[in-house]
């Protein structure tokens, strides 16, 4: 159980009479990058919001770090909350604060005993780790480009040295170069910091480049989960269309080589075992 960071069982979400999730099960294992894909409206973001407690599901059980998350108020389960970081789609930076101040918000909230110098230093190296130039620190979100906003959001998500990182479409709206850079950054951070990453994406390149396993959402359930090569072998029409359409084929060609060079670590064995 210790190797399962997130465990979702029997999750049911509906808005009005529209069923989003029906009896959905999903596990995220320690140290992996799990990509979540699915057509528009299949509830990828709702799944993430349910896990991090922004959406209260109708039924089901969600355990994060082996602690039940359903029914916890905002001020409860803070021990779990400080162990995860979330990057929202648009960055969700506080618009009245500079990037450095944004990064410092969680630190000030949870560790008021840290000195001002310490908080400044932490913000400075987090901004550096997120791949932002040093002069981004004193800029306001409105002065940043889309890609830089995402990086700043990532810096804030990493502020508390989380073990678990949620990324909601991190490469959406980025140009191909920016998207590839962001993928590399995610991979590097995951390896350096030992993160577990829950990643929602539409970007086939991201799936091929950095995801250890991919979960496919359709019909309110996870219809398949496993390394991308295993998914390619399944017969489900949607999966076939998704990965074998023109875009899927191009992405596969582009990543044919890096796949073999992927570092072999304990993580990979787990992921194969779990598949």
């Amino acid at each position: 159980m210790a190797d399962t960071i997130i465990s979702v069982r029997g999750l049911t979400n509906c808005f009005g009479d529209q069923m989003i999730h029906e009896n959905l099960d999903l596990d995220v294992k320690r140290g992996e990058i799990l990509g979540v894909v699915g057509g528009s409206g299949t509830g990828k973001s709702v799944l993430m919001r349910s896990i991090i407690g922004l959406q209260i599901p109708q039924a089901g059980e969600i355990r994060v770090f082996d602690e039940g998350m359903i029914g916890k108020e905002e001020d409860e389960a803070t021990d779990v909350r400080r162990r995860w970081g979330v990057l929202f789609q648009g960055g969700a930076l506080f618009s009245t604060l500079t990037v450095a101040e944004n990064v410092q918000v969680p630190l000030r909230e949870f560790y008021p005993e840290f000195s001002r110098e310490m908080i400044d230093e932490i913000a400075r190296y987090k901004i550096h780790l997120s791949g932002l130039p040093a002069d981004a620190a004193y800029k306001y979100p409105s002065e940043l480009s889309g890609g830089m906003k995402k990086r700043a959001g990532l810096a804030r998500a990493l502020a508390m040295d989380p073990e678990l990182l949620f990324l909601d479409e991190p490469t959406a709206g980025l140009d191909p170069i920016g998207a590839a850079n962001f993928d590399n950054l995610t991979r590097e951070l995951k390896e350096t910091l030992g993160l577990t990453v829950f990643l929602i994406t539409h970007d086939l390149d991201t799936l091929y480049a950095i995801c250890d396993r991919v979960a496919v959402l359709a019909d309110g359930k996870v219809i398949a989960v496993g390394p991308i090569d295993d998914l390619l072998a399944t017969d489900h029409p949607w999966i076939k269309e998704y990965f074998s359409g023109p875009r899927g084929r191009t992405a596969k060609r582009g990543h044919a080589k890096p796949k073999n060079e992927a570092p072999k670590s304990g993580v990979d064995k787990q992921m194969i075992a779990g598949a």
Partner: protein
Amino acid sequence: MAKAAEFIEEKLPEGGTVLRVSGPMVIASINDLDTRLRSFSETINEIDLSAVTRMDTVGAWIIHRTAKDHDARISGATDHAKRLIDAVGETDEDAPLRISRPSSLVRFLTEVGDGIIVAGSTLLNFLGFVGQVVKAAFMLMLNPKRFRIHAVVQHFDMVGVRALGIVGLMSFLIGVVIAQQGAVQLRQFGAEVFTVNLIGRLTLRELGILMTAIMVAGRSGSAFAAQIGTMKITEEIDAMRTIGVVPVEALVVPRVLAAIIMMPLLGMYASLLSLIGGGLLCWIVLDIPPTTFIQRLREVTPLTDLYIGLIKAPVFGAIIAMAGCFQGMQVEGNSEQVGLKTTAAVVQAIFLVIVLDAIFAVFFSNIGWD
């Protein structure tokens, strides 16, 4: 997480100090370790990490910084710890986190200057906008087919019909308040009967229209700014332009026209309800029966008072609608702007209405309509 990170210093027999760090060097167990290390006065030659159980970037940063400050060696680090320390060590430590701000005098002067420039350019832009609206109105007269009658009717509903409840209630209460205050004051001279003059003249000439204008500015002027501002952000207005629809014709003219037509009607209705409110109070408090009230009203209130109200109302309506649409068109960039511009629209509309009202008051007195 129960155990805190700790360090002990150890003097080596051959000279020099070794710092032996132990426990989990992670954010949750640092506590005041950083502060204590910062105030550590002796020179450290070596930092021994062999007793560290876990490390994250915050721990790595503290080790890196301490090692750098004391020019100390790091020993006993695991591969993971080395990797973290290297990763955080690449940071440029002198990078500024804040921009130094100019002195308060300079900032004050800058703000005053900026304010003047903004006020001046807003005035010019507003005049330009009024010109655009007038031009668009003429173009529509030449091409009546392009005139959007449905939009105008829809705004009749929004500006006029839906405002009846709140404007009516407000005016009725204002009538009551004028009558009540007038009665109390005039009773001192035994001239309660002049309360009717007060109600009739004040309501028809000034307050009926003015209060309606303020209410319309708050209800509809703000709505215009918010609607058009949102359309600007969602690029609907750009889409219109590319399709060949002139936004001023499609969005602004119908709103302005609706406000011009609805304001006199709403103003009349408001004045009427004010008179009813005042009359009711006169009946109850001063024992002036309604028939007497109406008769006296007809004697003391000249018809010009009604004309004044009816002349002012469409002008106010035009100003309110144009201020709202103008501010909506000024929205650029993010959604925060919509809120700012909506506020600006209401403030500007009410300000302009009151300025114009003062000008009208002087004008009508001078032409003998008093």
